[in-house]
């Protein structure tokens, strides 16, 4: 039930951002549409911890600043590789262990890997992820497992 | 000054088109089209500021969603030869 209410709040927020009007008729049609969407999604069984993972919100807020720092550093590194007059590429791929317990946690981990320039997740299995990296250093950093631990911490906070 | 950003974005988009034309694999082309689309989203937003018409941001959101679905559909069609309606 809490999950349905939070979904309704998020949808109402998006409706208001997109319409930007406080006209009572528009607001009322917004409420009706949101209720319809929530009811239909509930009937389809889509509002569970995978379809609308609001339970990760607290952990994600703590995790995002660290991820943004990593992305900024990786951006500089990849830009330097591309702009170097003589490109030195020691690209390669390897399997990185993933110790998340839920599918949503695994998705967060794989997306974090892909979002960081210089590393891309190629295929995702239940306990490991195949990663392609632009430099061996990026691969070694991932295999040391700091990002893995932090995503597990995101999962753990409920 | 928005002019400078617009010029940089158009330059980047033109350069990306080189990869779309050259290929060599279809994946390269799809990836390049997707990056081109991401740049288009920002170009639409910046154009809105350049011409002082903030309504362009709505077009930007719509294009961001279309770009995502379009790329995945193109990828799926290339891989399976249909979009899932055949047995």
């Amino acid at each position: 039930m809490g999950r349905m209410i939070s979904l309704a709040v998020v949808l109402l927020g998006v409706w208001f951002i997109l319409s930007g009007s406080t006209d009572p008729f528009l607001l009322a049609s917004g409420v009706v549409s949101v209720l319809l969407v929530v009811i239909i999604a509930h009937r389809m069984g889509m509002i569970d911890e995978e379809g609308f993972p609001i339970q990760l919100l607290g952990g994600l807020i703590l995790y995002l600043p660290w991820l943004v720092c990593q992305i900024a550093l990786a951006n500089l590194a990849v830009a330097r590789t591309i702009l170097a007059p003589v490109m030195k590429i020691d690209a390669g791929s390897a399997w990185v262990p993933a110790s998340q317990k839920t599918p949503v946690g695994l998705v967060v981990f794989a997306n974090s890997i892909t979002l960081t320039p210089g590393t891309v997740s190629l295929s995702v299995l239940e306990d490991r992820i195949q990663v392609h990296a632009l430099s061996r250093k990026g691969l070694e950093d991932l295999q040391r497992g700091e990002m893995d631990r932090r995503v597990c911490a995101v999962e753990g906070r409920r | 000054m928005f002019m400078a950003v617009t010029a940089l974005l158009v330059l980047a988009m033109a350069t990306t088109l080189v990869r779309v034309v050259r290929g060599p694999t279809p994946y390269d082309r799809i990836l390049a089209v997707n990056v081109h689309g991401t740049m288009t989203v920002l170009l639409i937003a910046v154009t809105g500021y350049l011409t002082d018409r903030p309504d362009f941001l709505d077009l930007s959101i719509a294009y961001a969603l279309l770009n995502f679905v379009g790329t995945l559909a193109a990828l799926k069609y290339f891989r399976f030869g249909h979009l899932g309606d055949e047995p």
Partner: protein
Amino acid sequence: MSTLIDVVSWVALVAGGLLMVTSALGMVRLPDIFTRLHAGSLADTGGVALILLGLVLQTEPGLNTLKLLLIGVVLFLTTPAVSHAVGHAALLGGLSPDSSDIDDSQSAAS
């Protein structure tokens, strides 16, 4: 104060534009599909974030700020999925991710 905000936003906008050009250059220069994925994610993260930051600083706080943030959220949720899908499809399509150790003479010619 507003001059400072202006300066920061122009720096962010121009840096974002330059990062976009860098990413496009990488799309052309890098030797194979898997390394080009990294050039693409350069535009999807750094370029998008910097340009949107510059635009947010140029906007009066209000509805348009929220719309810019919504664009950012949508792009940050969808672009890694596309990168992963392209990489996975290329892998299934039989391209080898380990053969991209190419020296510079070849990549200049490609």
